[in-house]
């Protein structure tokens, strides 16, 4: 069955081999049925491919010649022509990370998938599913802000989104996928019965402000859509006016999470904003404080009745970039950030979080890396396990993190 499944996923056998840390020729033998799939690789393989062990080991799969009927649910949609090999391989990488994250949680005795289920359930129960999609999105956002502890006074929540999402059990990944038109996506990861959502934002040619919205957009899909649709994909060139119910809802959700009317009122008062004659400087100040990009800010201001459509169009044309760079380090380039922040955070946070499989790279979440190192230092895992959880060989691990390992673990 492995051969049909791999063909159905449109992942190359070579990439799958490196993903599963086995030699390519050995993987070929399994695909061709010349050697049985050994047990040591099955836990990872079933989670990454999203297929049960029974199906994986089945000898006589039923299916059509194109393999589509054999594609595990997660991969069925990823077969789309809109997606590139880079996208599919990236999803494979993240699903493998999900496998290890679940392992780390089991070691640490935490089960954040339960927290996620509780939060998602409470949001779903608060929403009238017969209401217009934008209303559903806004209502869900109000409840999500409360459930995920995102009500941070009436200020911007951009700096809280990632840690809070992780606290409620979502896996948040931001990493560059250069050859991809994918802006964001979400899908379930982990073992069956212990699934939780992974929300991903592509950092390539993107800003931190933009990604705040992308991540929350994906969170909405995770709450409403993942149960019936194992993967949600959002592309950079999506139409300006979404017509799809789930997209309208997700857009409203992200906007309401980030820029509820109360936040606009708060900054209007605090900064003495004159919405009728907004300047580029004012706009930059609001973007820096509310943590959203210009388009979203002005759309929220329009929806909140602060500005007219004409004014929105006029303000959209403002170039706020240089003023924004003066006001927020989130507007800096990575190079500028590293130059300015050097020495203020451990070296590994900036430089050593990358992992590579085949030709694909992934930047691991800093919190996850820290948890692995901490778990190693209290003796809960071996050095080899720590390297494995960070998806690198033990030599690379020792080179990068040797200084952080306490003698008892070393």
């Amino acid at each position, binding site marked *: 069955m492995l051969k049909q499944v791999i063909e159905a996923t449109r992942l190359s056998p070579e990439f799958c081999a490196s993903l599963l*840390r086995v030699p390519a020729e050995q993987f070929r033998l399994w695909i061709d049925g010349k050697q049985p799939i050994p047990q040591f690789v099955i*836990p990872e393989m079933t989670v990454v491919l999203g297929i049960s062990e029974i199906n994986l080991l089945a000898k006589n799969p039923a299916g059509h010649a194109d393999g589509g009927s054999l594609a595990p649910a997660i991969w069925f949609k990823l077969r789309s022509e809109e997606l590139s090999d880079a996208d599919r391989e990236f999803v494979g990488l993240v699903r493998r990370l999900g496998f290890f994250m679940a392992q780390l949680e089991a070691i640490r005795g935490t089960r954040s998938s339960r927290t996620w289920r509780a939060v998602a359930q409470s949001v779903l129960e608060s929403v009238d599913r017969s209401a217009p999609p934008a209303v559903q999105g806004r209502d869900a956002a109000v409840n999500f802000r409360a459930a995920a502890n995102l009500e941070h006074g009436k200020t911007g929540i951009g700096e809280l989104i990632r840690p809070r999402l992780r606290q409620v059990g979502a896996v948040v990944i931001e990493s560059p996928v250069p050859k991809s038109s994918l802006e964001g996506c979400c899908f379930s990861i982990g073992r069956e019965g212990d699934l939780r959502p992974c929300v991903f934002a592509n950092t390539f040619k993107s800003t931190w402000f933009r990604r705040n919205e992308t991540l929350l957009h994906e969170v909405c899909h995770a709450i409403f859509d993942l149960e019936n649709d194992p993967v949600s994909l959002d592309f950079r060139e999506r139409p300006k006016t979404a017509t799809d119910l789930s997209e309208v809802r997700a857009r409203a959700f992200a906007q309401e999470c980030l820029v509820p009317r109360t936040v606009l009122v708060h900054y209007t008062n605090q900064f003495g904003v004159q919405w009728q004659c907004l300047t580029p400087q004012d706009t930059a100040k609001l973007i820096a404080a509310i943590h959203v990009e210009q388009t979203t800010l002005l759309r929220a201001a329009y929806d909140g009745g602060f500005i007219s459509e004409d004014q929105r169009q006029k303000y959209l044309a403002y170039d706020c970039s240089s003023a924004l760079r003066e006001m927020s380090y989130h507007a800096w380039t990575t190079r500028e950030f590293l130059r300015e922040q050097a020495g203020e955070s451990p070296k590994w946070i900036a430089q050593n979080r990358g992992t590579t499989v085949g030709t694909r790279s992934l930047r691991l979440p800093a919190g996850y890396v820290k948890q692995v190192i901490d778990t190693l230092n209290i003796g809960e*895992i*071996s050095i*080899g396990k720590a390297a494995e959880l960070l998806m690198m*060989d033990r030599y690379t691990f020792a080179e990068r993190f040797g200084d952080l390992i306490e003698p008892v673990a070393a």
Partner: protein
Amino acid sequence: MSNLQGSELLQPKTLVIIFDSSVVLQIIATGQFRILRSLQSDFGVQSAIVPAVESEVSVIVENVPKFRGRREQFKKALRNRTLAIVNRDFLAPLVGTAADSWIRQIDAEGTRLYDFVDRGEAFTHAASIVLNALVATNDTTAVSRLVRQGETLPSPTLRFWDLVVFSHQVGWLSENDCDAIRQFLDKIGERNHPCFSSHSFQDGLPHFYARLTCSEEPGIGAAETQEKFDERIALTRVNPLPPEAPR
């Protein structure tokens, strides 16, 4: 905790040592497969690895620069069974028709241990527990972790330097050979045992508690245990050397 008590399950006629990748890679790097061959021919000790380690080592020798170009050496050792793979063919002479059942037990144990130690370590220790075989690994963090959770691991746990020191004791390696190994590992950035890092072999040896010794040779290394998990196993030659035989 494991319910298996390896010693109750299997007492292989041949002493088996199951190698973790950390030791296999140091053997590959230093070109010391001859130690394993001599252990087999002179002491009847069969060296083996689990399939997970075979894969891990294959990937590392292909991808980690310091091991590149040594793939053929590894393959040859597998081909001529200097290093056997723990599979049905390996187990059949030991347990007969029950080989499949043993494999299933190793797989089940390995999958269980995989939550705490890495994949290679998990299946290596699983095979060791099920087959009551010794393990050779340099990673004491994995051993500590498993012991702490109540796993009964066959002892002693051997390290790469136990093989080198044993080889010196029985005359397969001279003092200079051992020091050259030490220097080479140091040069390529491989961790040496603390006794031999920044110390010559000669200087470090008196402080090293050899876990693998030969019962027919004068003692070697430290007489008293030096660290956690220090225990000793003494091997006897399958065919004793005639008194006049040159070493």
